[in-house]
């Protein structure tokens, strides 16, 4: 048998109760999501979707911050739910996290150095002070920072871009096999964003580190990732190679989404007006028997309302959940 996948999500489901304590309403934030990331090479996989698509919930489940309602996450073949305390610590060392808000992840009372020294202590990365300094220096230079710029400073003295780079440096310092990055650039200005994206790419290309990258920005996904999962209301509607999915979106939702992304080119403006009226109301959905995109889909038929569309491989490395293709 071949090597187990680096990360494998199998029929992952997360249900949240919504409304008051007596409410019976349930929100299926993540609904039967499956995908894998290979272990034979470092890749960047994007979870893309709009607000409420469940992308951050999946990130939190993968990081072990919340438990799935059902389904499983396997890391190098081991089920996350069955890890021992020791196994969990090892997992935390191998899977790093970078979050969206570079302002909220820091304790304002401590200098940023503590971010590094705590990590080094927790994972016992260095045996001497000289070792420790070398590690920190190495990590900083790999994300494009100099020690003079950041060490000995408090978080408020640094820009958002610098803070986000520090989080990446911390992840690199621990030397994980994979990073889970939840919208790491959505609060960073355009002129600095590119640098951070390039750091994530370098981590893949030079350090062999894979990344599960969560974003709502398809242009960023296109730039960065090898594979993509398009999520909508908790379900994975389309997945596969990023280039294939973005160039030839097969699901009507992906088509709508990709067609609506503005391009930084005034010569390629939208041709026609789209209408979204009342349908763009995001309701708290109960269990949906059929396709979650049914109400908004221009091609929806009877079957789409009643039956859950199966996942169909329309071409190699390109899977769609839509009755059109079944």
């Amino acid at each position, binding site marked *: 048998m071949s090597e187990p996948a680096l990360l494998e999500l199998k029929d992952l489901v997360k249900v949240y109760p919504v409304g008051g304590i007596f409410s019976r309403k349930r929100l299926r934030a993540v609904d039967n999501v499956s995908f894998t990331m290979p272990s034979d090479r470092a890749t960047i996989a994007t979870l893309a979707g*709009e*607000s409420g698509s469940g992308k951050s919930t999946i990130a939190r489940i993968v990081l072990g911050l919340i438990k799935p309602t059902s389904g499983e996450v396997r890391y190098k073949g081991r089920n996350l739910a069955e890890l021992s305390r020791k196994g969990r610590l090892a997992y935390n060392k191998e899977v790093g996290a970078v979050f969206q808000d570079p302002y909220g992840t820091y304790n304002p009372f401590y200098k940023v150095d503590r971010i590094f020294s705590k990590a080094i202590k927790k994972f016992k990365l260095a045996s001497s002070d000289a070792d420790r300094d070398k590690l920190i220096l190495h990590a900083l230079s790999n994300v494009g920072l100099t020690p003079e710029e950041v060490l000995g400073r408090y978080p408020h003295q640094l*820009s958002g*871009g*610098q803070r986000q780079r520090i989080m990446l440096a911390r992840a690199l310092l621990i030397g994980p096999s994979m990073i889970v990055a939840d919208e790491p650039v959505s609060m960073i*200005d*355009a*002129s*600095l*964003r*590119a*640098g*951070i*994206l*390039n750091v994530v790419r370098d981590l893949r290309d030079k350090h062999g580190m894979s990344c599960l990258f969560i974003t*709502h920005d*398809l*242009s*960023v996904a*296109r*730039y960065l990732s090898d594979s993509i999962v398009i999520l909508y209301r908790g379900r994975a509607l389309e997945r596969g190679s990023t*280039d294939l999915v*973005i160039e030839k979106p097969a699901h009507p939702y992906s088509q*709508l*989404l*990709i067609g*609506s*992304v*503005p*391009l*930084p*080119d*005034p*010569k*390629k*403006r*939208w041709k026609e*007006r*789209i*209408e*979204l*009226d*009342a349908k*763009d*109301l*995001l309701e708290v959905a109960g269990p949906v028997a059929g396709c979650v995109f049914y109400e908004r889909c221009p091609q929806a038929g009877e079957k789409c309302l009643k039956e859950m569309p199966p996942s169909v491989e329309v071409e190699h490395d390109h899977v769609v959940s839509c009755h059109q293709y079944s």
Partner: protein
Amino acid sequence: MPLLEVKGLKAYYRTRAGEVKAVDGVSFSVEPKEIFGIAGESGCGKSTLGMALLRLVDPPCYVEAGDVLFDGVDLLELDAEGLRTIRWKRFSYIPQSSMNALNPVARIGSQIVDAIAAHEHLSEKEANKRVAPLLKGVGLAAECADMYPHELSGGMKQRAIIAMAMALGPQLILADEPTTALDVNVQRVVLQALAYLREAMGVSVILVTHDMAAQAEIADRLAIMYAGKIVEVGAVDDVFADPLHPYTQGLMSAIPSLAEKRQIKSIPGYPPNLLDPPPGCRFHPRCPVAVGRCREEQPELRSEARGRLVACHLVVE
């Protein structure tokens, strides 16, 4: 004649550490029926600029100098009563994240009626008659008038706000980050609504947003701001096709596009602290082509041969 002409506008924040020059000598004009984009990154002063135009800045911020001529009248010189006849009525404003400022316990229609009644002497019946066409103008069904804000999605709320800004039939709307925090296809509908209002009603729009792709989508002309100053102004097609200022060039090569996979890179360094901006050109510490003169002498915004305004010593007239 331009509808709005801004000359040498300065808006500063008075702080204990000194004056923060958020808007420092900004000049531009907006033509009738034009969508004029103002782009720049956080902290470049674009929102302060918008508020200063309408005299909505509060202490510690104040307007230090400049003229804001709306249809020939200097808004900065007007008394309160005079300002009332222009602000909202002829020059209205969509503040940042204003869709969260809708009254949660009043129906959309009555909030629009309130906005009308505050400025015009109209019977409620007459004001009510205006609601449906206003909603239609932004692509909302007339039934939305009877709904409460919580019943609307983000995109619908933002469009209701635009309808409210249109309620008094203005000649100019200033929209500050109207698409930020909205989902992509909702963003598209909001931008379309602004473009449609310009087409159908001939209203001018000042679109303030950091989102270059949104600017590319609907703006006619575009101004790029950096550290409190405008560094380049031109037709949107030209600015994107052939950016002239090194900052604009850097910005263009920093944004990824869905259409193509090209290498992007960030601009080295960080924007300056506006308490103590660098001497000379404010971009020079990050500029790849800066020369000695850039460190000493502040470049003026002046027109260059291709019909653009650029503030750079190295762009030849």
